[in-house]
């Protein structure tokens, strides 16, 4: 917390939606979030981390190297058991995993297709019109904070054996300093902070 900077991003309202609400999203470099929900043998996980933590930059990937770094990061994030190591006794396997990079603007517009025309410039990948892109590069560098999001569904043969998680995540991503972990299990919800210095989390108190 001490050395990280809390940045609040203003999402610039698209002209066509001038009367629309403007929302602010918190964005803290060095700090990611991992939500874990356990129900029976199913474990659902959600992961968010600033682009700075994962690939070291948050501007739109332009060079080959940048794009390669993003692709590699997305591929790594799609293998949750390598990042968040669960006890072998729990016999967990991944049934579904997806990871993506989202810019602030795109991130707000999950189900608003109308926005795409205005906000595409902020999307980092899958962009076709590079001429338009470069027009907005300056803006993207100013405010284009990006976040990696990932969602996982695991099946664990013995969920009671989920006594701890060790975060190899910190070894993989050197810019990450802290993860805020929230766990929902039978006994309710609890929050934890896992830091680089002590990258394991005991979950015994939950069972």
């Amino acid at each position, binding site marked *: 917390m001490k050395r990280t900077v809390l940045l609040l991003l203003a999402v610039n309202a698209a002209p066509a939606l001038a009367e629309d609400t403007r929302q602010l999203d918190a964005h803290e470099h060095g700090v990611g979030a991992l939500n874990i*929900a356990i129900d029976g043998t199913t474990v659902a996980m959600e992961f968010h981390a600033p682009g700075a933590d994962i690939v070291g930059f948050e501007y739109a990937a332009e060079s080959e190297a940048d794009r390669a770094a993003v692709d590699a990061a997305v591929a790594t994030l799609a293998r949750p058991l390598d990042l968040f190591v669960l006890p072998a006794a729990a016999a967990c396997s991944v049934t579904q995993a997806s990871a993506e990079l989202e810019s602030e603007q795109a991130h707000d517009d999950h189900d608003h297709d109308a926005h795409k025309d205005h906000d595409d410039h902020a999307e980092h990948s899958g962009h076709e019109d590079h001429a338009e892109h470069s027009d907005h590069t300056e803006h993207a560098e100013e405010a284009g904070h990006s976040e990696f999001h990932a969602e996982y569904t695991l099946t664990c043969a013995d969920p009671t054996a989920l006594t701890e998680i060790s975060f190899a995540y910190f070894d993989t991503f050197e810019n990450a300093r802290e993860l805020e972990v929230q766990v929902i299990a039978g006994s309710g919800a609890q929050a934890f902070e896992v830091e680089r210095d002590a990258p394991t989390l005991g979950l015994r108190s939950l069972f």
Partner: protein
Amino acid sequence: MILRLAIASLFARALTVGMTILAIALSVALFLAVEKVRTGAKESFADTISGTDLIVGARSGSVQLLLYSVFRIGNATNNVSWESYQDIATRPDVEWIVPISLGDSHRQFRVMGTTRAFFDHYKYRQGRSLETADGVIMEDLFDTVIGADVAATLGYSVGDPIVVAHGLASFSEHKNQPFRISGILAKTGTPVDRTVIVSMEAIEAIHVDWRSGAQIPGQITPVDVIRQMELTPKAITAALVGVESPLQTFALQRAINEYRQEPLLAVLPGVALQELWGIVGVAETALLAVSAMVVVTALIGMMATIFSSLNERRREMAIFRAMGARPTTILGLLVLEAMLMAALGALLGLALLYAGLSVAQPMIDSAFGLWLPVTAPSLQELWVILAVVGAGAIVSMVPAVRAYRMSLADGMMVKT
């Protein structure tokens, strides 16, 4: 041999030793009691609300939302519109939703408007439901159910009429629509005890003649007419939500937090309670530090008694030495005596704690709503006892070393 000697020597000085042991016992009992109250308070606090997956309110902070929606401390920054409430209620992942409407008061107690579902879904202390101690849950529009503290403080019983005041500290009352107490809830130890509960419709009903926070002069809609009106609320203060499956909780929370039409906030009650305890919890550390100092004081007291006993026992020590006891034996004897005293004191303290706990437990529960479970001594308590014995040994080293050095010469010299 040396143990028998130590025990016999302690018996020989039964009174002073007894007092020392009592002092240690009381200090240990105090320390363990503080620890019990601390963990009990923490658990009672965390059990204020259970079974609710999300609390939804206007966007502010998670602690603030928890404070006004559950603890009825402070006020909401904004209301939640009925449309947004309906939007959330109709989502497929929402199993149940209970609206809460705050803002009016009766004497020093808050009035909360809600639905009957509140009594089905509000759980405390690991899944316990609200129960009426007397009467029934409200049936009529102008029925109210009051918490145990409200009834006890104001001396109300079932059937009494009460008038709700507009706002929190105002003199304008909803005189034209008095309520009737239909039920009194059993003591829960939660903020529900200090709440007057009415139906959501009743909150609308008493505000029929009010516009922009003031009563319209001269306009009094008869109660019969109000009963015919459609009393759909326009806004609520907060809502308690239960999800179909815990797996959907985070998705629902995010959907509410990113709800575009209105700035809303959904918090996990457990996490918010933890956050709040983090703020309140500084006091618990202070409390623990104070009781630890009491234990230290008792041990230093023991050291003082040993020191003064050394004077009385000069001859005794010298005789031991003359009979061939080595200085280390003298040292061992004194340390052993101290450890015996400390161990006896600690065990007596534990016994005192459990005796006191079993007597006071029901009283503490009914007076403070604080449930202190009588469980077998935890590993932590055994560690405390061990630590006291160890600390006893360490403080006794000081007089023991003195005796070790002086026993022979000092005792043999004729001083008197």
